[in-house]
C-alpha cells in the first residue's frame, strides 16, 4: 500500500494506530497495559487493554525494521505481551516462565527484535486470562517488496468474544460444571423427537454413546453468552469501513477470541483470500470462510455498488454473531442475516467414523494417495459410475442441492468427507477433507457457493525447500470434559516433560484429535506447515486447527534455538493443560543484542 492510501485510510478514522506515524522513522513504540472499560453495546465490563483501550492499537512495522517496544505495566498484577506469529529470538516471545519472567506491576520491559517477515499478525497477553479480558491488538507488517495483489484501501477486522464474566471466573465455573455455559443442552423433548426418528433402541444407544464420551452433541462451544466484537464494537455498535464503489478493499481478519471460531461472509461480495496467517497464498475466491481462534486471513473484496454490505461472522456453534458494515458513507447499513440453525455433533465427530471404512478414512485425507483416487471409478449403489465424469466448474450448476449431500456407497460407507475438488475430473460440490466424514461441523456456504478449506491453501512462495521430515512426533489431543481437563497424550502440562527438538531437523507432527472439540494448535517461534497434499506449496501457518475425529499433519523446520510454547489457543483449554514446552537443542548461539533488557520504572 502506498503512503497516500495509508494517509487516506488514517484520515478516515479507521482506528489505526496513533503510533503509525512513528513506525517508518524511529522504530520505537510504546505500549501501556491498562485497566480499561469495555462497552460491547450489550454490557460494560472492566477489562484490560493497551494504551487505554481494548483492542489496543494497530502496530505497523516494516519488514527489515529493528523494533524497540517499551511496555509499561500499569496493572496491579504481572503481565506479558506475546507477538503472535512473529519469528524472533525466544527471549522476546513474551511467554512467562518460558521466554522470560513476565513484566511485574509498575515495570517497563523493553522488547527488541528484528522484523523478518510481513503480513497480518496480532499481539496479546500470555498471562492468566488477560487476553480474554481484552489484552490484545493487531500487527500489520508492510513487506519490503511489492505484494502479489493490489488494493486501494485496507482495514484490520479484529474479532473477539467479549464475555461479561472475567476469565478467572469463567475458568472456575467451567471447572465446577463443564456445561455451565452451554445453553444448548439437549432436552427430554429432543430425546422424544429422536425416538420418533430413530426408534427407542437407537435413541438410547445414541444417548449412551454420548454419555460415555461425557459430551453432548451440542458441545461445540463450551463457552457461550459472549458478545462478538469487530474492532471492539458489538453488533449494535456496527463497526463500519468506508469504500468508494469499484475500489479493492483489503480486509485483514484476525480472530483474537478466547474460544470462538467464526464463519465469515459478506452477502453480495466474493472474497479473494490472499494471505493465511500472514503468508501469501495463491489467491482463491470464496463466498465464506471459517477462521479458527488465533488465525488471520487477508481477503480482497471489490464492492462495486453504491450501497452497504454487512460483514457477518457467525460463531461456529451459531450462538452469536459479530457484525460490521462496509459502506460508501457513514451511518449506512445492510440487512443482517439470521443465524443459521446450530449444528449438532455427530458420531463422526466422536471419532467413530475412523473405524471400519478401510480405504475411505478421509480423516487422514492429507495423507491419501490422490492419484489413485482420481483414476478409480466409484460405483454408486445404482450401478452408475462416477469415474470419468467431469463435474468441473459447471457454470449454472446448483451447488446448493449438492452441498450437503452425502453419497452412500454400496458398502454403506459415505463419501461426505471427500474433497472432490482435489480430484480433477471428479470435482463435485466439495466437502472439506479437514472434517471427519459425516461431521456435524463441516461447513457449507450460506449461499451454496464456495467455502474455503485448508485444502485450498497453497503457499505463494514456500519459505523452505520441500524435504522429507526427519522424524514424526504424535500428539494426541485429549481431554476429560467432565472435569474440564484438557491435555496432550493424556498428560497435562504441569505433569509433562518438554518436547525436545534438535536444531536443523524437520519434524512431522501428527495431531490426532480424540476429543469432540476443535483445537487450534499454535507452536511459537517456528512455522507450522500444514500437509494438505500440496507438496512444496503446503501452506505455512502459525495455527493449525484440528477438527474432532480427524488426524492432521504439520511439519516444522526446527530453525529457532531456545524454548517455546506449544498449545491449544482456546484460552481455557491451554490453561487447563493442553500445552507443552518445546526445547530446541543446539544451533547458533543467540546474539547478545537479542537478549531481553529490563529497566525499573
Amino acid at each position, binding site marked *: 500500500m502506498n503512503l497516500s492510501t495509508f494517509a487516506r485510510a488514517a484520515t478516515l478514522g479507521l482506528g489505526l494506530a496513533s503510533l503509525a506515524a512513528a513506525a517508518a522513522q524511529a522504530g520505537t513504540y510504546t505500549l501501556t497495559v491498562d485497566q480499561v472499560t469495555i462497552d460491547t453495546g450489550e454490557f460494560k465490563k472492566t477489562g484490560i487493554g493497551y494504551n487505554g483501550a481494548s483492542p489496543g492499537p494497530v502496530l505497523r512495522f516494516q519488514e527489515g525494521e529493528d523494533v524497540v517496544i517499551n511496555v509499561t505495566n500499569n496493572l496491579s498484577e504481572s503481565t506479558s505481551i506475546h507477538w503472535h506469529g512473529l519469528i524472533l529470538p525466544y527471549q522476546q516471545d513474551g511467554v512467562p516462565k518460558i521466554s522470560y519472567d513476565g513484566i511485574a506491576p509498575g515495570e517497563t520491559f523493553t522488547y527488541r527484535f528484528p522484523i523478518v517477515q510481513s503480513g497480518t499478525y496480532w499481539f496479546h497477553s500470555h498471562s492468566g486470562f488477560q487476553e480474554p479480558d481484552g489484552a490484545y491488538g493487531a500487527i500489520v507488517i508492510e513487506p519490503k517488496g*511489492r505484494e*502479489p*495483489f*493490489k*488494493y486501494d484501501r485496507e482495514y484490520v477486522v479484529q474479532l473477539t468474544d467479549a464475555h461479561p464474566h472475567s476469565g478467572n471466573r469463567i475458568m472456575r465455573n467451567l471447572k465446577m460444571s463443564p456445561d455451565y455455559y452451554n445453553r444448548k443442552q439437549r432436552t427430554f423433548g429432543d430425546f422424544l423427537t429422536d425416538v420418533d426418528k430413530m426408534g427407542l433402541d437407537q435413541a438410547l444407544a445414541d444417548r449412551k454413546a454420548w454419555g460415555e464420551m461425557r459430551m453432548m452433541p451440542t458441545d461445540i462451544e463450551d463457552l457461550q453468552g459472549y458478545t462478538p466484537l469487530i474492532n471492539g464494537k458489538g453488533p449494535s455498535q456496527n463497526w463500519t469501513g468506508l469504500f468508494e464503489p469499484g475500489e*479493492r478493499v483489503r480486509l485483514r481478519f484476525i480472530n483474537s477470541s478466547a474460544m470462538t471460531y467464526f464463519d465469515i461472509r459478506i452477502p453480495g461480495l*466474493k472474497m*479473494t483470500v*490472499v494471505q493465511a496467517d500472514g503468508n501469501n497464498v*495463491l*489467491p*482463491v*475466491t470464496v463466498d465464506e470462510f471459517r477462521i479458527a481462534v488465533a488465525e488471520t486471513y487477508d481477503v*480482497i473484496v*471489490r464492492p462495486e455498488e453504491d450501497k452497504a454490505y454487512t460483514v457477518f461472522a457467525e460463531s461456529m456453534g451459531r450462538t452469536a454473531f459479530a457484525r460490521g458494515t462496509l459502506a460508501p458513507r457513514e451511518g449506512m447499513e445492510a440487512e443482517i442475516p439470521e443465524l443459521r440453525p446450530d449444528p449438532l455433533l455427530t458420531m463422526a465427530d466422536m471419532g467413530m467414523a475412523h473405524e471400519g471404512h478401510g480405504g475411505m478414512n478421509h480423516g487422514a485425507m492429507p495423507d491419501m494417495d490422490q492419484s489413485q483416487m482420481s483414476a478409480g471409478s466409484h460405483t*454408486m449403489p*445404482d450401478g*452408475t459410475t*462416477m469415474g*470419468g*465424469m*467431469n*463435474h*468441473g*466448474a*459447471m*457454470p*449454472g*450448476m*446448483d*451447488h446448493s*442441492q*449438492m452441498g450437503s449431500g452425502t453419497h452412500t456407497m454400496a458398502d454403506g460407507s459415505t463419501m461426505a468427507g471427500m474433497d472432490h*475438488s482435489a480430484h*480433477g*475430473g471428479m*470435482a*463435485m460440490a466439495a466437502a472439506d477433507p479437514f472434517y471427519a466424514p459425516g461431521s456435524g461441523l463441516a461447513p457449507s456456504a450460506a449461499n451454496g457457493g464456495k467455502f474455503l478449506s485448508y485444502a485450498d491453501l*497453497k503457499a*505463494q*512462495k514456500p519459505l523452505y525447500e520441500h524435504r522429507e521430515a526427519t522424524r514424526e512426533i504424535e500428539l494426541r489431543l485429549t481431554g476429560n470434559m467432565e472435569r474440564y481437563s484438557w491435555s496432550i497424550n493424556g498428560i497435562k502440562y504441569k505433569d509433562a516433560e518438554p518436547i525436545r527438538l534438535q536444531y536443523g531437523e524437520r519434524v512431522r507432527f501428527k495431531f490426532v484429535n480424540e476429543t469432540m472439540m476443535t483445537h487450534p494448535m499454535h507452536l511459537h517461534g517456528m512455522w507450522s506447515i500444514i500437509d494438505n497434499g500440496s507438496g512444496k*506449496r503446503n501452506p505455512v501457518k502459525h495455527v493449525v486447527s484440528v477438527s474432532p475425529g480427524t488426524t492432521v499433519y504439520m511439519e516444522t523446520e526446527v530453525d529457532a534455538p531456545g524454548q517455546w510454547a506449544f498449545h491449544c489457543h482456546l484460552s481455557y483449554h491451554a490453561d487447563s493443560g493442553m500445552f507443552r514446552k518445546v526445547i530446541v537443542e543446539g544451533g547458533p548461539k543467540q546474539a547478545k543484542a537479542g537478549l531481553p533488557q529490563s529497566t525499573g520504572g
Partner: protein
Amino acid sequence: MKVDYVAKAARLAAATTLSVIALSAFTLTALPIPAQAAGGHGTGHGNAAHGAPGNAADVTRTIEIKMFDNYYEPEELSIKEGETVRFIVTNAGEFLHEFSIATAAMHKAHAPEMMMMMEHGVLEPDRVNWAAAEQMQASMGHGMHKEGNSVLVEPGKTGEIIWTFPQHAELEFACNIPGHYDAGMTGPIRLSH
C-alpha cells in the same frame, strides 16, 4: 450445439442422481466460432467493442508487457483510438499468467471458463497441461487454443499479440487465471484521440 450439451448434462444428471454441469455458458477463450454462437460473450472477431486482431503490417507501436506474480508492468496503458499495437508479453513470474484485452464484463464472463479449465487440470499453477487440455477437448468438445485478444504465457516464456483498438471503449488488460483478476492483476487501457 449449446442445446446438445444441456440435454446431455440433463441425461447425465438423471442417470447418476447427481446434479451436473450446465454447460450452456461454457466457451473457451479461443473458439474459432462466431461470437453469437459462443453464448454472446463477444469474444469473436471483427466488429467487437474491444477491437480486433491486427495485421503486422499495420503495427505502429510495440509495447513490452512484463507479467509478475500477480501483477503487470506497466500497470496501465495509454493507446490511441484505432491504433494497432504489438504486445510482447513476458512472464517473469513463477506462475502461469494471461494477458487479455477486453471489457470488464467480458473478463467477468470469461472467468468461469478459466475456473473450469483449472478444475480439469488444464491450468496448473505454473504451466498449461496440454495432455489434460486434449482430454478435455475429447470429452467435452472444448479445448485450448490461441485467441486474438489474449495470450497465456508460462513462466520464463514470451508471447505476442497484435491488436487493433476500437474508437471508443472502456477496456482493461487482465489475467483471468482463477483468483488473479480478483487479486488485482488487471490494469486500465486509456484510449485517446
